[in-house]
Structures are given as C-alpha cells and as structure tokens.
C-alpha cells in the first residue's frame, strides 16, 4: 500500500465518524422528538429541516473555503498567509452565526404559517424554532473550529468535539424534551454545540497547532473564501429550498399525515452526509498535493476516494433495501399505514445513496481544483434543480411514490449530465478529475516502506531517474544521498515500526525533492538538531549545504521539501 493510500485510509475513520456524528446530530432531534412527542413531534422537527440546512450552509460558507485555502497556503509553505485566512474565517463564523439567528427570528412566524400544517404541528415547530436560535449562532462556530482543527491534523480532538456535541445534545435534550417539549429539545441542541466549542479550544494548547490569529482583513480574501465555499455549501442552500418546498407540497397534496413518511425519507437521504467523510479524508492530502502542483498524487488520492465513496454508498443502499425498517425504528413510527408507506419510501430513496456519495465527493473535489462553478452546478442540480422539477411531475402521475422516485433519480441524473459536460470539455484523458497532464512528464513518485534495502533502492532509483532526465551526475548523486540519509534517519527514529514513505521528484521548476513519511514527527531540516551519529552529522551538513529546504508537519505526517 502506498503512503498516500495509507494516509487516506488512516484519515478515513475519523472523517467518517465525524460526519456520522454530524448526521446523528441532525437525526437526534428527530429521534428524540419522534419517541417522546410522537409523530406530531417528528413532523414538527421535519418542518425545521430547511432551517437546519440554512444554518449548515452558513457554517460551510466560512469553513470550506477557509480550510481549503489554509491547507493550500500551508502546502505552499506560506504560514502567515494561512493564519490570515483562519483569522478571517473565525471572524466570519461568529458574525454570520449571529446574523443567521437574527434573520431566522424575523422570518419564523410567516414561514410556519406558509407551510399550512395542522395547528398542533405548527405550534410545536414554532416553539422549537424560537429556542433553536442560540444553536443557530453556535453551530457555525463549532463546525468551523472542528473542521479547522481536523485540517490542522488533530483528527482525534475534532472527533472528540463531535462526540461532545452529540452526547451533550442527546443527554441534555432527552430530559429537556420531557420537561419542556420541543423547545427543550432545541435548547439541548444549542448546549451540545457549546460543549463542542469548549473541547475544540484545547487544540490551541497543543504543540503542533498551526492555527493562529493574525491581523489580516482583506475584503478580496473574504470573497475568495466565499467563492471556494459556495460550491460545497450550495448543496445546503439547495436542500434548504427543497425542504421548504417539499414540506409545503406534501402537506398541500397529501396532508400533514404524510409528514412522518417525508421525515423518514429526508432522514434516509440525510445518511449521505456521512459520505462527505470520504472527501474530508481526501482533502488534507489532496490540498497539499494541489499546493505542490502534483496532479499525479492528487489523482491517486481521488481515485481511492472515488472507490471508497462507491463502496460506502452501495453498501448502505444494500443494507436499507434489505432492512428498511431500520430507519423507521429510529423514530418510533408504528401506525400500520405509515409503516407500510415509509418502508417502501426508504427502499426507493436508498437507491440514490451511491450517486449521492459520488456527487458529494465531486462536489468537494471540484472546489479543491478551483472549479467552484462546476461544483455548484452539480450540487444544485442534484439536490434542488432536478428534484424540484421532477417531483411535481412524478407526484401527479404516481402520487407519493412518484415523489420518492423523483428524489431517488435526481442525483444520478445530475451526475450523468455533469459527466457529459466534463467529457466534452476535458476529453477522456482528463475525465473525471479534470487534472492537467502537462506537469506529469516531469514528475516521478517513489513509494516505499522504510527498511535499509528499500531506502537504498529508492535512493539508487532517484539517482538513475535524474541522470536519465539530463540532470548532471553531481546533483543527481546529491539528491540520491539526501534520499538515503534522511530516510535512514527517519527509519532510525522509528525503530521497530512500519513506516511508509513517499519520495517525489519534481523537475518542472528546477529540481525539487519532497520526502513524506508517517513516522514520529520531527524536523529533519533543523541544522541545530542534536548530532548523535555520523549519519546525523552528514544530514546536518547536507541541510547547511541546501539553502532551500522546508519542513512541514501540519497534516499528521512529516513533509520535507528540498530544492537542489
């Protein structure tokens, strides 16, 4: 297994669990209200889905762009600039969180009236909405800090914050709902977000923390963050619009009795949020590779991500096709008519999960590579444009079943349309990642698991590769020496462990060597490091002889860059 694949897989559980925790957080209020307040409670929370999506949209609008730009700037070794983006992101998360709560307070009553739901559902939704306003402020901040902490390499603390949010929410929401109804549930959600923020603040005390605030307020950078974010965040604003429209449509066409079934459908589609973990696991690596202008490794990571997304989406689809009752038992639906309709609905919409997994991956990926508009088009087609066009048509012919079928079909259709566009624009050679092949001829990657024989083999291969590409013998030997000596030092620092490493030789702009390893974090480029052997003495002297060298450990692995 290569270094890139190994790191991607090591990031995947934490990223997936984080997204699963986020999905469960979104689900928790439906589950709690469904079980404690019955189908009315479930319907009331489902009316809030649009509001949840708006709050997530706000959080993502500041988070996605900041995280991509932060990682890319670190990839390009611009630490101060990266911290400038973090500062802007922090200010924006707080400001937009407050603004969202203010806007939601103003529109609460007219929107609930517009839904036209039964009085009991409307009353409960209004109460929940009012007490959800503090959570609407805190959630974008918690999401921003959690993602930045993850991007900065602290996947464990990021996961702990999700856990704190989920557990805080559940443990507090249950007694609060029992005591105060839907309002108590909303208060518990806000307190869960507060718990997550408190946990995340510990990251700033950690040794390897690269997050920091600096005086940086350039208006164009806010626009840059927003434009980078919109592609990914657009799915939430699209979903918000769809949720408002779909709730109103279902109530008008099938009555408030169909709302519990719609709630289960929304929950089933919501499972796809977990698949965003695949893109999140790929992002720290892909962003760094993009920062290094290395399409070879970017493609390698994204290919692994694509396969993973398909496996995850396909696996959960099969599970729900076989056991649709799993979703129903979560929210405590037990009336026979609702159960029968909801089981069928779960089976129908679960078919959308593989295409939703791919859609979410490409949604994030096209943002990585600067194709934000393409990302937005894909997402808005999948979660808004096609569903809102198809469900009235299918609904008028096949009733509620047609609505569920339209929701299942839309993501696959959107992917197909975008795939055709990408093929037409980039041709087969650049499909589907749209990466230029221009730089690839001058790029070579050597993968190895560190042991003396493999290290010497890689060193010899690097030397031979450079000589065949016209690099003079002296420089080629120096590069080979650098590979052997630095990797042997890494090997010695990690005795008894299996360490994966990756050596990139880039001849596009002079001769650049990038050495990555997943061993213990230490700075090999430090010329003042303790010399304890002839090898470390040679490495120390080599570092002095190479003027352009950098060490970066931000994403949980050592990265040493040398220009020879």
């Amino acid at each position: 297994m290569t270094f890139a694949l190994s790191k991607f897989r090591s990031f995947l559980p934490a990223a997936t669990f984080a997204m699963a925790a986020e999905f469960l957080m979104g689900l928790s209020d439906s589950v709690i209200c469904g079980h404690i307040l019955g189908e009315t409670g479930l319907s009331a929370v489902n009316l809030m889905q649009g509001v949840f999506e708006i709050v997530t949209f706000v959080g993502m609008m500041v988070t996605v762009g900041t995280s991509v730009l932060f990682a890319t700037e670190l990839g390009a070794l611009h630490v101060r600039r990266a911290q400038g983006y973090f500062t802007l992101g922090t200010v924006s998360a707080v400001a937009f969180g407050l603004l969202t709560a203010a806007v939601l307070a103003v529109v609460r009553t007219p929107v609930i009236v517009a839904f036209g739901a039964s009085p009991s559902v409307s009353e409960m939704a209004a109460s929940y909405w009012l007490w959800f306003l503090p959570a609407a402020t805190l959630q974008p901040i918690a999401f921003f800090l959690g993602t930045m902490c993850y991007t900065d390499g602290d996947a464990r603390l990021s996961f702990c914050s999700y856990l704190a949010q989920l557990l805080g929410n559940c443990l507090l929401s249950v007694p609060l709902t029992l005591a105060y109804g839907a309002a108590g549930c909303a208060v518990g959600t806000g307190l869960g977000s507060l718990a997550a923020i408190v946990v995340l603040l510990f990251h700033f005390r950690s040794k390897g923390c690269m997050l920091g605030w600096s005086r940086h307020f350039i208006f164009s950078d806010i626009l840059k963050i927003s434009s980078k974010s919109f592609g990914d965040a657009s799915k939430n604003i699209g979903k918000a619009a769809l949720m408002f429209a779909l709730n109103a449509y279902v109530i008008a066409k099938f009555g408030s009795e169909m709302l519990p079934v719609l709630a289960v459908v929304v929950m089933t589609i919501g499972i796809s949020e977990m698949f965003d973990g695949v893109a999140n696991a790929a992002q720290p690596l892909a962003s760094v590779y993009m920062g290094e202008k290395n399409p070879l490794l970017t493609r390698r990571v994204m290919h692994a991500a694509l396969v993973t997304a398909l496996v995850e989406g396909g696996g959960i689809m099969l599970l729900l096709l076989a056991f649709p009752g799993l979703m129903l038992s979560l929210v405590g639906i037990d009336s026979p008519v609702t159960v029968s309709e909801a089981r069928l609905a779960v089976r129908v919409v679960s078919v959308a999960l593989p295409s939703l997994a791919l859609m979410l991956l490409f949604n994030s990926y096209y943002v990585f590579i600067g194709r934000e508009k393409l990302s937005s088009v894909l997402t808005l087609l999948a979660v808004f444009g096609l569903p809102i066009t198809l469900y009235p048509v299918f609904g008028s012919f096949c009733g509620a079943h047609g609505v569920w079928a339209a929701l299942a079909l839309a993501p696959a259709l959107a992917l197909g349309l975008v795939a055709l566009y990408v093929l037409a624009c980039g041709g087969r050679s650049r499909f589907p990642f749209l990466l230029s092949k221009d730089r690839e001829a001058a790029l070579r990657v050597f993968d190895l698991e560190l042991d003396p024989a493999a290290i010497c083999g890689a060193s010899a291969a690097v030397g031979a590769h450079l000589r065949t590409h016209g690099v003079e013998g002296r420089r080629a030997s120096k590069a080979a020496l650098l590979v052997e000596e630095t990797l042997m030092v890494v090997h010695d620092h990690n005795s008894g462990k299996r360490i994966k490493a990756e050596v990139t030789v880039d001849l596009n702009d002079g001769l650049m060597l990038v050495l990555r390893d997943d061993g213990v974090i230490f700075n090999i480029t430090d010329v003042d490091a303790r010399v304890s052997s002839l090898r470390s003495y040679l490495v120390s002297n080599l570092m002095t002889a190479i003027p352009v060298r950098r060490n970066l450990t931000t994403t949980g692995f050592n990265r040493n860059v040398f220009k020879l």
Partner: protein
Amino acid sequence: MEIKTTTDGTRLTIAVSGRVDTVTAPELAAALNFGDATCVVIDLADVPYMSSAGLRLLLSSHKTMIGKGGELQIANAQEAVREVLDITGFSDILNLV
C-alpha cells in the same frame, strides 16, 4: 558491488566498483582486511555514490592504519563522492590522491 584486491609488497590496493550505501557497506567492510600492509590504497574510480555508511568505513580504516603506523590513501574519488567528503570535512582528514 565489486571489490578487487591487489598486493604489491606491503602496498595493498582495494579497487571498489558500484554504489557504497547502507546495504552494500557491510560487503566492503568484510573486504577491508589489511593484513601486514603498511600502505593501503582504496581506489574509488568506479564508485559513483557513497553515503555515510561508506564514510564510516573510510574513517575506521584511516584510524586502523594510523594506529599501526601505516598510511591510507583514497584514490580517484569521483566528483560526487569528493563532494560528500568535502561536506563532512573528511577531505581534510583523509589522504586524497
């Protein structure tokens, strides 16, 4: 790696060819048996590459020969190997010819 040894009285010449790295250095170490020689020449004309593992052998050989009142010469070092000796300051310690 290939190692050829020729003796001319008390002068021992060891001609090395190939890379001298962490993996091949033990093979060279086994061949550095100086016997009664008072002058040892290590010919590096066909060594395009040498890492710290090779340097360690040169240094220990130098110490051995000094200890027995003899001499170690490093002959025909290629530019890349000479640079490594320069970077480490070994070119000032060893007798390069």
